[in-house]
């Protein structure tokens, strides 16, 4: 895996070309992800504009404190991920493993809060459209629409995190076996880009879902 022969794949001329190609490929992939989430954001924006008051009511049913805390957790994991990439760039195997592990742990904290503390709670409150929806306050049907989007958007986001955790596990094993070096850290760098992107998506989901209208 780590011998110099395998560092450059046969279709490339040299390491620089390979590195540029994979970075560009990753960014293009992230562009497709922007459009993928973008579809959801478009639909959400349209409905928020039609049903402004109802969406604010619904937003206030969410726990903004947990949302803010989770944002902080994800930002921490972004930091450790950035440091992991830096460690990989400098060829520091031990530090790389430590930072990867902390990133994964923080990711799991986020998922725990999301699923157990929030989703489960929302479900018990009767805020899960299609499964258990009992809310009967003002704008009930539009609140249901909001919660459709809440679950889909956070669900797709959480799915991306779970995929990220899976890939990171593979990278961790590879790092353990010493597959990365100063010459070959591309996969870690790509992983970093993906993870930061997932963070950015959450940075937008947080105000859009939790902070609509003033809470007082």
């Amino acid at each position, binding site marked *: 895996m780590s011998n110099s022969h395998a560092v450059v794949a046969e279709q490339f001329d040299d390491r620089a070309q390979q590195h540029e190609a994979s970075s560009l490929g990753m960014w293009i992939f992230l562009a497709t992800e922007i459009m993928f989430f973008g579809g959801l954001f478009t639909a959400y924006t349209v409905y928020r504009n039609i*049903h402004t*008051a*109802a969406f604010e009511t619904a937003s206030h049913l969410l726990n903004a404190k947990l949302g803010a805390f989770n944002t902080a957790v994800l930002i921490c994991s972004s930091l450790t991920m950035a440091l992991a990439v830096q460690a990989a760039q400098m060829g520091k195997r031990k530090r790389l493993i430590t930072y990867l592990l902390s990133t994964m742990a923080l990711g799991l904290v986020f998922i725990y809060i999301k699923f157990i503390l929030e989703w489960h709670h929302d479900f018990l409150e009767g805020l899960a459209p299609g499964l258990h929806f009992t809310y009967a306050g*003002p*704008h*009930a*049907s*539009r609140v249901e629409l909001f919660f459709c989007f809440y679950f889909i958007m956070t669900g797709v986001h959480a799915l991306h995190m779970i995929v990220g955790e899976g890939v990171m596990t593979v990278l961790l094993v590879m790092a353990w076996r010493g597959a990365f070096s100063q010459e070959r850290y591309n996969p870690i760098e790509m992983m970093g880009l993906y993870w930061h992107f997932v963070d950015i998506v959450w940075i937008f989901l947080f105000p859009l879902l939790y902070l609509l209208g003033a809470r007082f």
Partner: protein
Amino acid sequence: MPHAFPLFPVQASSAAPGVDQLFYFLIAVSVFFSALIFLLIFYFAIKYRRRSKDEAPPKNQVTNSIQLEVLWTVIPMVLVAVMYFWGADIFVRDARPPRNATEVFVVGKQWMWQIEHTNGKREINALHIPVDQPIKLTMTSQDVIHDFSVPAFRMKNDVLPDRYTTEWFKATRTGKFHLFCDQYCGMGHSLMRGWVYVMKPEDYERWLRSDVTGITMADQGETLYHNLGCITCHGTGKGPAFAGLYGKPVKLSDGQTVVANDAYLRESILYPTAQIVNGYSPIMPTFKGQVSEDQVLQLIAYIKSLGSTESNTGAP
């Protein structure tokens, strides 16, 4: 239809000649450019054909001409600009029903058209209208998206669930014309069609008055107003009064002002808490599921019939 093989549909509405003229213009442009391209290709293809297998490629090839590029950019631009404004002009005019139009109400459902006239006369998969008189259709669907299309009138519009769309036309010749559902709506889509009967005004009046109970849509709406218990709030001041409401601006509790039109009234009946009138509390239950689309239209017709009275009491 006397011809077995017509090339153009009959013009039976005031809008048809305008649309057809624009269509002829588009055909003229298309024929001109198609012919130009075809002739040039044929001419070049024959004139510059390769005469022997090992003919050398031509020398001094012309591969660029800014003048030509500008020419064939600008000319199409001018032509499409003409098309755009011409088409937009007709389209915008067709979107504005005249004030004196006779209203007819259409409910689409899988797979039939239910039509109700204001005097309470109903018909299915047929629409009787008088000639030379503007007709405005207010349309909604009980299930999926349909489309009310009358090719002879060059007019169509989609019919959506939970929403009113409109279209209007003025028939200019009497006769029987196709009515199609043009938006694919499931299994019986191609059977969801009928006829538009354009009649002389006196025939139309006779038709309108035959087999009719004498109960207008507004009357039926008034009955519903009592039976559904609307009167207990809207007749007592607990809810907003209806008299003189239709077409007026309404101030909502969130500070917005909306006009009390068909769409607003419909939403207020089915989703009462969505738009609360300023000064009232959101206590009205939803009537979604309790009233059918045609009953909603009857209630609206009733409220509309109270339109001109400026009194502040509830029911007249």
